[in-house]
């Protein structure tokens, strides 16, 4: 069995003074695709942001090891350079910078960090074309400012293209499938399937099991109230689809929620 890329132990995290993750455990190994499902407000995006190092998300207890190193002490750009990639649920618009320019700067920063030579404009463009072709993504948005005025589908395609481009060791896709029509969903699924490899781990965070019709995960976990309450194979996703999340809720957790409600 390969060494874990990501090891999360008893993770507690809070944002805006409210505890969201309440003792989460998860191990992801190279070559694996794992899915994390959960209803709204279960802590899915908080997990993604904590792993990526976003400000405003405070880890109050627990550890996260990334390739054996303490992930939580690294600044966000260091995590990215070490191969952690987050596909955003809501990709951010950056006016004034073309997607191409942005990708080139990001790629060369990461290549430099890995001791590789920076790509010049010509090699870079060749790589863009190759990756766009591989993913069957129309790359016409490359000359437009990053995500500015992009449709929802274009933004998600852009995230998948960036993932393919930056060649991460751990890719976290935060609800990349949400709000997409079936064609866009297939592009995302194709991206995941093409990128699936022995040296890469992928964490698919999703609300619905739709994406899992096209991507077969090695494991499925259900996240509820900041904790993984059930793990299983791909059939768990189908059960959730059928029965919803209610049957998995821990009675005591519900009661405590009700108690704190105003």
């Amino acid at each position, binding site marked *: 069995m390969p060494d874990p890329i990501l090891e999360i132990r008893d993770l507690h995290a809070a944002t805006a003074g409210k505890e969201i993750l309440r003792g989460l455990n998860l191990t992801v190994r190279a070559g694996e695709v794992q899915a994390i499902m959960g209803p709204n407000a279960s802590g899915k995006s908080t997990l993604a942001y904590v792993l*990526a190092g976003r400000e405003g998300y405070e880890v109050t207890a627990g550890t996260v090891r990334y390739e054996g190193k303490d992930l939580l002490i690294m600044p966000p*750009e260091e995590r990215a350079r070490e191969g952690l990639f987050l596909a955003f649920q809501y990709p951010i618009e950056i*006016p004034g910078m073309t997607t191409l320019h942005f990708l080139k700067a990001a790629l060369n920063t990461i290549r430099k960090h890995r001791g590789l030579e920076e790509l010049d404009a010509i090699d870079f463009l060749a790589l863009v074309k190759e990756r766009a072709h591989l993913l069957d993504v129309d790359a016409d948005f490359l000359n437009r400012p990053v995500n500015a005025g992009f449709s929802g589908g274009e933004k998600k395609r852009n995230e998948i293209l960036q993932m393919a481009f930056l060649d991460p060791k751990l890719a976290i896709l935060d609800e990349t499938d949400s709000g997409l029509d079936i064609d866009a969903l297939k592009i995302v699924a194709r991206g995941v399937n093409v990128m699936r490899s022995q040296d890469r781990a992928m964490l698919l965070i999703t609300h619905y099991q739709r994406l899992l019709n096209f991507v077969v995960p090695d494991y499925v976990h259900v996240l509820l109230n900041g904790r993984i309450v059930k793990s299983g194979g791909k059939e768990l996703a189908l059960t959730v689809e059928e029965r919803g999340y209610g049957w998995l809720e821990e009675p005591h957790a519900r009661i405590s929620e009700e108690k704190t409600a105003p």
Partner: protein
Amino acid sequence: MATEDWIQDLPPHEYKYGFTTEIEAETAPPGLNEDIIRLISAKKNEPAFMLEWRLKAYHHWLTMQEPQWAKIHHPPIDYQAIVYYSAPKTERRPKSLAEVDPLLLATYRKLGIPLSEQEVLTGVAVDAVFDSVSVATTYKEHLAKLGIIFCAFSEAVQNHPELVQKHLGTVVPYSDNFFASLNSAVFSDGSFCYIPKGVRCPMELSTYFRINAPRIGQFERTLIVAEEGSYVSYLEGCTAPMRAEHQLHAAVVELIALDRAQIKYATVQNWYPGDSEGQGGIYNFVTKRGICAGVDSRISWTQVEVGSAITWKYPSVVLRGDNSIGEFYSVALTTHRQQADTGTKMIHIGRNTRSTIVSKGISAGYAQNTYRGLVHILRKATGCRNYTQCHSLLLGDRCGAHTFPSIAVHNASSQVEHEASTTKIGEDQIFYCRQRGLSAEDAVSLIVNGFCHEVFRELPMEFAVEAQKLLNVRLEGTVG
């Protein structure tokens, strides 16, 4: 660091041009009166028409009030506390570079403006203005062979008085505005440039302004005349030492383009901006205007404004000749407590005249950045067009961007377009970039440089690179 504080804790300005030169200077006592004006005129051995003009300007200035309409704030300026004349002491005016005080040459070398011609950027002729006087002009002889006159303003008054008398004040009259009138009364030097008919100036002409002495106000005047069918590209740069008190810089630039002539005028303004609390820095109150006097003439202003505590300037074009073209490309960056109120006026008088305005304002820290523009198309100016693009970028949430566009079109056959946007670069954009491996500083620099791209490409190549570097230096520490 909490999200809302990400941009507030800026380190102090890194201003590497803040040194002073210990050079013996001949300095007039502070204060403004007829005697000082007579002294300046006498020092420069000026013909009578110049003194007369200065005095007219002075008496007119006395009747004027400082303008209050700009969106800038500063304590009252004591015009009697300013020194109106200071010049490095030399036995006599140096005839060649070999005679220029080595201390001055060293100063310019330190500023990255070498004045010995072997070292000068190829293809750039430089006029160096130190406090109140021009200390050196390079490539003069070379240019003279083509009939081009490029020299200190005071020298032009001596050697080409007829040209000076004919054109001085024809674009910016001495009564134009408070600061222009003050300049007309006390200006001490600047650059003069004359391109004869049909000549294409083969090199970039450039003036480098340096304020050195304390309490000095720099009042320079630049006059560029491009005769029929001629072409010139001109660049000015500015720096000053770091001083705790504010210093006044009130310049006037006049451009005249005759039939089919073209003038490109670029500015990289990096006066000392003051410290992070707003102590010290230059008040940059400048009047710049060009007239497209002839048919098919063209004037372009390109400015990169990163320095000064306060910038107040509106490089404008009067489009009198039919089919003439006016352009204004501007990047104004304000950080810490800097204030900029800048923009342009395009006055369409001739038929089928066209103008383009591209303004990019960037604010960080507690800075305030204002675009103020006027597009005026007169009744008889039929078939005119204007395109205006005015974009503001905010870094953080304590700075401000303001836009005051005025458009007046007096005929039905002209077209104007105005496009404007304000965007904020906040924590989420920075985080997105960091998640892709970029440091926060690289992210800001990439965003800002991308934002300014349309303006930078109007600059001559070497200067575009310089401008980009300068912007990066000034942006250092704008993210926490």
